[in-house]
């Protein structure tokens, strides 16, 4: 990889955005994660924030100066280019996280099934059949935007967002699926709940998932949900 086909947007004095495309696309997103791994490995004092099709770099402009102490963007550009030209960094550990979901707790599961013309059981089967990729984390700490949703399950957001979606809600919004790490306002369709904690400030790292991780969902019942919730301390 190199910077040749990458558009660099100067966002702020301490921030550049590398844009790899303009679409939500598995291949573009994979390039973003690859670049984040290479730049992260070569330039550890640059903070990399991946999103669907672009990579935010936050740096200290005082570290990239000419002999007069002025910011020298070409030094930074060259350093990024040579990081990208280096050997691909294997994104180890290639973590696959399995998230247990009690689909019976999803308030909108029936609506999603009706919209898809499927039974609730088929919706669950299709939602659990796929290995997703964490395209990015945003909106709230630990909230994963997952790529890979079966297109038949895509459904627009609710016309009126809920003022509070319960913590652990597994949801569909358009072509995307994700999990609410905490109680938040939100407009996505709720198809289930996980008892697993996605963001915990006392853990290091605090987020169960990081950008680029693989995710699978596994269906559980109410009794299993309660047992895991009790162990995890997430029981309501």
């Amino acid at each position, binding site marked *: 990889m190199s910077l040749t086909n990458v558009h660099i*947007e*100067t*966002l*702020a*004095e*301490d*921030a550049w*955005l590398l844009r790899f495309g*303009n*679409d*939500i696309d598995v291949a573009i997103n994979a390039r973003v994660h690859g670049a*984040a791994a290479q730049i992260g490995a070569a330039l550890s004092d640059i*903070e*990399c*924030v*991946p*999103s*669907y*099709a*672009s*990579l*935010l770099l*936050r740096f200290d*402009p*005082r570290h990239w100066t000419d002999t007069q*102490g*002025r*910011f020298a963007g070409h030094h930074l550009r060259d350093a990024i280019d040579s990081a990208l030209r280096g050997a691909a960094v294997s994104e180890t550990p290639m973590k696959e996280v399995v998230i247990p979901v009690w689909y019976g707790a999803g308030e909108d599961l029936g609506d999603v099934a009706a919209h898809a013309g499927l039974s609730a059981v088929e919706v669950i089967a299709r939602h659990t059949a796929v290995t997703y990729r964490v395209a*990015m*984390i*945003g*909106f*709230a*700490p*630990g*909230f994963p*935007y997952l790529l890979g949703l079966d297109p038949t399950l895509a459904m627009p957001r609710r016309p009126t967002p809920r003022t509070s979606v319960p913590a652990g809600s597994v949801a569909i919004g358009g072509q995307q699926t994700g999990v609410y790490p*905490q109680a938040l306002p939100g407009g996505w369709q709720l198809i289930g709940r996980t008892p697993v904690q996605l*963001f915990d*400030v006392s853990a290091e*790292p*605090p*987020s169960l998932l*990081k*950008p680029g991780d693989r995710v699978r969902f596994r269906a559980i019942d109410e009794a299993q949900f309660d047992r895991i919730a009790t162990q995890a301390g997430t029981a309501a």
Partner: protein
Amino acid sequence: MTIELIKSGLLTSIQDAGRRGYASLGLGRAGAMDEPSRRLANALVGNAHDQAVMEITLAGPTLCFREAAVIAITGGIIEARANGQALPPWTTCFLPAGTILRMGGMRHGCRSYLSVRGGFGVAPVLGSRSTDLHARIGPCGGRALRAGDAIATGHAAACSWFPGGNEMKALGWGLDPQPWLDYAQAPLALLRGHHFDALDDASRQMLFSGRFVISRHSNRTGTRLEGTTLQLRHPLELISEASVPGTLQLPPSGQPILLLAEAPVTGGYPRIGQLAAVDLPRLAQRRPGDAVCFTETSMDEAMDRLRRRDDALERLLRRIGQRLESA
């Protein structure tokens, strides 16, 4: 030592330089909105620059100091009385044990910074003592301080500036807030954003000639601007991207929002501008109802002003240190 809150004030929170390194996990930096004022408050009491301070918004809290303390208040000029005696702003002050410090309204600016010698002894969360009120992460469970809270302070090394005693005392010198606090409310420097060219002709003009007013719905996540409505030539369908504080985004309402310390780390609205970083503290000192005008700047000019501001700040911090040592 602990400081007790008798009254919370409008919005009071503990803030340091911010929580770095968690944006890829969805958590922004938070931190003091007016960072130079935070650093100067620490310097005035002889603290290391990374100590947390109390950020006070528009109407101040009432605090009880059980033990003697050395404090300073910088940022917005707020009415502050220690057992009835007025405290000079931007000045190192000694408070005797048992002081009730009543802070009232803010005469200039929007946010004051109270430092205490020794710093605030609250436990860091993910490496920082900043409170992210929006994400609910930080000291006190990530919430604003409220009446009844008792905030621990760190160990205050002995200093020879004050002989002690039972009365409030202030050092005979303080800082001039003038260069740091933007009394004149001059136009703020704005860079063109990635989607500036998507604005219609009139809106491109209005962005740099119009007058905006800060909405009362503004907070630490963003300043909402009213008074002038902007429009795109045609709607843009954008996918979510990472964003940074200082970005001026345009939601469909046409009322721009300038993202601040607690803004979500990703967003999908068109980005029509970027406030020069050097002007972020100046914006942070404007209050709801205040006017905002933008003047166009270039990245070179913005970088140059930031560098000169940082150099001036470093010089002043060194001078404060020298004066305190010789006091």
